[in-house]
């Protein structure tokens, strides 16, 4: 029997649903309420808190609320982008879970009328998850490579907290011409509703309402029973649908567009109706099926991938269907846009469900937001570790999984297709050159979960700061943010408080740095038993690059250059990678950003960029200054390049080399421009100092208060490159790899 409990509703929500209808809902109606009022679709726990992120008026073209946020780049382009998670599906089936995550976020961007130009993926695993990681990386490559959207960067990080709860967040960025956009809420009564793409099967029914809206109490048993059929990624159909949607959009006949994601048709239709203030009536018999005997319930809740919805004026229907058939994608007229504001479903002529659409979307029960809180903020202790610095520690940090080269992963992603990529994976962010207009795009993602381990507010703020610093270091001017929030169960009061603090940290950072949050995603229930993930905010920052062809990044260093550190080192090693090398898995609290100083660093960096001074720039993050400089050195083609620096002599060597204090950036500038650099630092109020010089020694040399340490390039390289993988990466699960 289908009732409130079988569709994941509480008894109280069940009563509320019946009250709204004034009668006992039908089986299908229960399914619709269950899916749309699920945490995943309704954001019932998070919506009131997410309101804190609302950008000031005028800063965005389309803000939170649409399938993806939209900001203006210049007169030629608008940028649509969003981060989305696919954590639960990737845990159940790493390859297809990750693959369908990529497909899903691409369709959100397409639904805004934007052509997807870049992907980034942010991954978190437990320390011994080689096989899971292999499946996820394979899945991301399988989908992204084939659909033809370059994966231009990402993140890969580990922590005990992610052991039973891996995180797979994907960012997609698309571009559209101003005025060429479309959205879900612009249908008009009388329009025909057209379903495009794959035939519907019994895939992933209840994926959203149950799988992604609950904890994994007993993962195997539970996921085993909740899963009718795993969703399979099909980048081929994905590409056909993507190209076809953007082609018909150009014809100017479409009124609205919506992707099918979680909860399938039911959610897509409810969104279209709810946002547009219209009604929709569909005939399930007209939905093409892959399997026999599917019930309306199954058709409406199926999460079969690679599907989109359109609305078209009836007079243009034939033309649009003809065009779609020439483009070789399936398209079916499945219903009508009405004026009654209801989501109605017919089967064999009879109405089997009819619900006011608004009650499914905005009418979902909501949890009240707590007081907007920022604390308790935990302040890290000053430098504590005793004992003298040993030179091998640095190699240990450089070779730590957080710091070592990720090339063996990103070389498996196509980062160059579409021929826009000026700077791809391996830098602080990516730079794309667009076909028209002077400006390029800069993109970075950062989700330092470790910094949230003790204090989510600080973690959220630092994630935003790091992403914005990365965009600026790449030469960009930040124009928008998207946030993927990953937490445990919101039913747990501590987790809920962390969530509020995380959002408050992001909101404060966005406000302090004057970059709008345009959208994002919330993934709760990343929790197994009482083990929950660190509150992890994956922040994507997008920026405008005024001169993309000349993007510098790690650059080419020459012996006539000096190195400067913008910002200030700090004396704590709490929450650093060095701290992780102690091996207890407890990072300790992180330092909250000082906004005045952070703004000064960003200001100085952008003025250096405007003056064309930096020949290279790289921020200080995982592993501290040592790793920053080692990476700059290893990025040089010329093996003779060396760096000779003197670190802050007020600090113990260890603190100077490995602190990860916020807002620090290393830049390399031609030596004879020292005066200009110092002038810009002074007038921006940016603390900073000359670190040293580029040399021809082929080595990295540090002068510290504990002595002088030299690391030849080959020694650094050997530490930084992970050993050739020999783990069972040939797992057969998943397709696309058998010849």
């Amino acid at each position, binding site marked *: 029997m289908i009732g409130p409990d079988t569709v994941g509703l509480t008894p109280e929500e069940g009563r509320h649903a019946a009250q709204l209808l004034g009668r006992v809902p039908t089986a299908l109606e229960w399914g619709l309420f269950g899916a749309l009022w699920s945490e995943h679709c309704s954001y019932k726990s998070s919506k009131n808190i997410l309101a804190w992120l609302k950008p000031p008026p005028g800063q965005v073209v389309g803000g939170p609320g649409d399938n993806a946020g939209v900001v203006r780049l210049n007169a030629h382009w608008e940028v649509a982008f969003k981060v989305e998670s696919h954590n639960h599906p990737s845990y159940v089936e790493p390859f297809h879970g990750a693959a369908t995550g990529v497909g899903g976020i691409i369709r959100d961007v397409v639904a805004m009328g934007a052509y997807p130009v870049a992907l980034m993926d942010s991954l978190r695993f437990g320390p011994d998850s080689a096989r899971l990681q292999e499946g996820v990386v394979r899945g991301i490559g399988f989908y992204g490579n084939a659909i033809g959207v370059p994966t231009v960067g990402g993140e890969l990080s580990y922590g005990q907290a992610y052991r039973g709860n891996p995180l797979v967040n994907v960012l997609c960025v698309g571009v559209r011409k101003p005025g060429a956009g479309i959205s879900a809420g612009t249908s008009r009564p009388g329009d025909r509703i057209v379903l495009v793409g794959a035939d519907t099967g019994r895939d992933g029914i209840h994926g959203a309402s149950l799988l992604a809206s609950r904890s994994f109490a007993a993962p195997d048993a539970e996921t085993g029973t909740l899963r009718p059929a795993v969703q399979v990624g099909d980048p081929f159909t994905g*590409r056909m649908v993507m190209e076809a949607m953007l082609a018909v959009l150009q014809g100017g006949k479409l009124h609205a567009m919506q992707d099918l994601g979680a909860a399938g048709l039911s959610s897509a239709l409810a969104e279209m109706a709810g946002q547009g203030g219209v009604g929709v009536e569909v005939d399930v018999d007209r939905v093409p099926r892959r399997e026999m005997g599917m019930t309306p319930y199954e058709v409406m809740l199926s999460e079969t991938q690679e599907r989109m919805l359109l609305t078209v004026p009836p007079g243009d229907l034939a033309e649009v269907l003809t065009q779609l058939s020439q483009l070789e994608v399936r398209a079916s007229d499945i219903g009508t846009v009405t004026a009654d504001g209801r989501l109605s479903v017919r089967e064999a002529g009879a109405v089997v469900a009819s619900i006011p659409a608004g009650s499914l979307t905005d009418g979902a029960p909501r949890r009240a937001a707590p007081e907007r809180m920022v604390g308790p903020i935990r302040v890290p202790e000053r430098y504590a570790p005793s004992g003298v610095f040993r030179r091998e520690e640095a190699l240990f940090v450089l070779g730590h999984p957080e710091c070592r080269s990720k090339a063996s992963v990103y070389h498996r992603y*196509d980062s160059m297709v*579409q021929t826009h*990529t000026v700077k791809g994976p391996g830098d602080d962010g990516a730079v794309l050159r667009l*076909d028209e207009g002077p400006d390029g795009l800069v993109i970075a993602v950062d989700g330092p979960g470790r910094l949230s381990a003790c204090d989510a507010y600080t973690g959220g703020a630092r994630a935003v700061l790091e992403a914005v610093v990365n965009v600026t270091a790449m030469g960009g001017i930040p124009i928008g943010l998207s946030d993927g929030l990953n937490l445990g169960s919101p039913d747990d009061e501590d987790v809920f408080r962390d969530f509020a603090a995380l959002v408050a940290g992001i909101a404060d950072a966005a406000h302090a740095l004057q970059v709008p949050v345009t959208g994002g995603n919330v993934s709760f229930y990343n929790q197994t038993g009482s083990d929950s993930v660190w509150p992890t905010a994956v922040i994507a920052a997008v920026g405008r690059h005024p001169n993309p062809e000349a993007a510098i990044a790690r650059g080419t260093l020459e012996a006539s250059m000096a190195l400067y550190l913008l910002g200030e080192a700090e004396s704590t090693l709490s929450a650093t990678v060095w701290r992780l090398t102690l091996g207890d898995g407890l990072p300790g609290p992180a330092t909250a950003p000082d906004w005045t100083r952070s703004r000064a660093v960003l200001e100085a960096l952008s003025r250096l960029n405007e003056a064309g001074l930096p020949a290279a720039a790289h921020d200080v993050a995982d592993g501290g200054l040592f790793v920053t400089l080692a990476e700059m050195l290893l990025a040089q083609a010329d093996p003779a390049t060396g760096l000779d620096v003197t670190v802050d002599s007020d600090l113990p060597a260890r603190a100077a080399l490995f602190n990860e204090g916020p807002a620090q950036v290393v830049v390399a500038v031609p030596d004879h421009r020292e005066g200009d650099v110092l002038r810009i630092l002074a007038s921006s109020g940016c603390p900073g100092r000359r670190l040293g010089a580029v040399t021809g020694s082929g080595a990295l040399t540090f002068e510290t208060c504990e002595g002088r340490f030299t690391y030849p390039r080959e020694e650094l390289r050997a530490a930084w490159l992970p050993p050739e993988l020999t783990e069972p990466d*040939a797992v057969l699960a998943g397709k696309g790899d058998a010849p």
Partner: protein
Amino acid sequence: MKVAVVTFPGSNCDRDTLRALSRLPVEAVPVWHRDTHLGGASAVILPGGFAYGDYLRAGALAAHSPVMGTVRELVNAGGRVLGICNGFQILTESGLLPGALAMNVSRRFQCEWVQVQVQECLPGLRFAAGERFSLPIANGEGRYIPDPQRPLGRDAVAFLSYRDGAGRPHNPNGSWREVAGVASADGRVIGLMPHPERASAAWLGGEDGLRFLRVWTGGDGVPA
């Protein structure tokens, strides 16, 4: 010169190839895989991507597209065809070039820059023996396997081979004899795994690919 660029369902380097050609003094026209004419072009490019998702085997399903009959006729009539990556796979699958492309020995998709060297001069084209190009590869099935029934050296030759930075043989994927590209002996049909269109501007990392395409479209190899 007029060059047609074919889009198969699932091709994803078709536009990139058109854009690279726009930097050369040639006319480039897009063609859909169901088309049975090439718009008067005397040369055709089968671009990279994942035609039909590379399902079954890379290139196998696309080899049966209607346009392939037309491509064959063009070659018989003296025209030229260039298969890039997936296009190369389509050429071997359709028998226009001998051999096959199998999964890389790494079992992985590999996206990286490589050096390739011209091993054989081709009639009618000004590729110089020993000439090198720095180009990106991006494939999971790029390991060349020769056909014992149609060995290279008769009607077709090992046109390009992988080299390391110092010009020594180098093998990124386990290809037979470091083969990176194959051509019919008459030079009309060429297939290669690397992507010349991705090396068509300095800001993309290099212009060797543009030079390659310039030579293929009948120009010389002198840098612009």
